[in-house]
């Protein structure tokens, strides 16, 4: 794993904060795009739509971060050089929660968890960073994520939790090779 638990220390410089923030969004875009494709492949159009909307949201967020970054030169980090609290970027979907029959409620729950993780990440950064400008930006990012959390929570109210047999598929898996 990229980090042993308990050693997360987000005392970033401006460039580092930005590169992490950008990575969060870009990885989230990729993640949601992949999930959109997967859901489409499996005919789960409702959730595909949801994931697609999220990928657009994240892309917009990424664009905003790019604009904020402006001309600041961002370090080129190897994938494992990012300092995430867990294994992956906070907004990376945990595949264990993905299922081809997943309901919108579950998709949103996953997304909500991501936004909350991202918020926690930026809060931690806001606390730890020593530079005022960095702290202030980190706080701004945290607030953005808080906003996303609110959206997800609101969105969730439109759906009901899944039934007990949500993953029942009368058709068995297919052996294609």
């Amino acid at each position, binding site marked *: 794993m990229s980090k042993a638990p308990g050693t997360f220390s987000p005392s970033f410089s401006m460039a580092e904060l930005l590169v992490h923030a950008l990575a969060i969004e870009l990885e989230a875009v990729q993640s949601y795009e*992949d999930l959109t494709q997967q859901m489409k*492949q499996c005919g789960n159009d409702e959730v595909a739509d949801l994931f697609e909307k999220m990928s657009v949201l994240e892309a917009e967020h990424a664009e905003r971060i790019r604009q904020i970054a402006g001309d600041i030169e961002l370090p080129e980090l190897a994938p494992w050089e990012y300092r995430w609290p867990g294994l*992956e970027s906070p907004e990376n979907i945990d*595949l264990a929660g993905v299922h081809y029959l997943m309901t919108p409620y579950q998709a949103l729950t996953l997304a909500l968890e991501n936004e909350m993780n991202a918020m926690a990440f930026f809060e931690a950064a806001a606390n730890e960073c020593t530079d005022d400008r960095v702290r202030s930006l980190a706080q701004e990012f945290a607030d953005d994520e808080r906003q996303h959390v609110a959206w997800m929570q609101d969105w969730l109210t439109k759906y009901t939790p899944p039934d007990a047999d949500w993953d029942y598929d009368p058709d068995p898996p297919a052996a294609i090779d």
Partner: protein
Amino acid sequence: MSTETPRKPRASDYKSDTKPVWCPGCGDFHVLLSLRKAVAQMGLRPEEIAVISGIGCSSRIPAYMNCYGFHGIHGRALPLATGVKVARPDLTVICAGGDGDGFSIGGNHLLHACRRNVDITYVVMDNEVYGMTKGQPSPTTAPDWDSKIAPGGTGISPFYPLVIALASGANFVARAFSGDPKGTAKILVDAITHPGFSFVQILSPCVTFRPDQREWKNQVHPAPVKPTSDASQAARRVMTDDGFNIGVLYKGSREPYQQYVGQENRLDRDIDKEFLL
């Protein structure tokens, strides 16, 4: 006139247009991501990478990257990859497949590929089941895992891939976890860069036939020691391995196989002199 420095490759540069057939939630999606991240990090050109596989869910991976690929026959990915690399040492050759393809029908080739130590990287996506054929035990499945074909379990001890690879002479032995694409990417970069035969077992849960493997993310842990270049030390470590140690176990210094096809074509016209009476 501005000369633009070529931008650093991104993982998305190595995506093909082909949509994976894998079940959503399959660990292989993240393995694919890790592989793309790894080759992007190394800056390899897509056309200089050959991804060679056998048959099974994991073996579908070549088509999902826009590199050269060969989806071969069951169990024969390693000899296929060996042929490609020996003929074309200029290519980066990545061999891929699952635990059935690699350890059961492909088991013999694994032993000899490790011995031969050709400079390829073998990635086995281990989900301790035959997924493609709908849920039979594989050589890494626990003996008491119930299935239709072996009710109550096979009763046979599982195969320990890292032990076998190490004992057979692999020059690089590691275990990764699909749920950690970045860590896996790092291990893959290490494996591909390291000369000789690199073996990477990637625990990659099967969402459809092994839902119990959701627990793996809580069971895996970084190996508490750094990689060793001492094979006997690696052997001692691996004998107490709980199957969830993540990291590079062994980085050896065996000379890789050198007898490649050369660049020049040098057939001597006088070759038939030896038959002259």
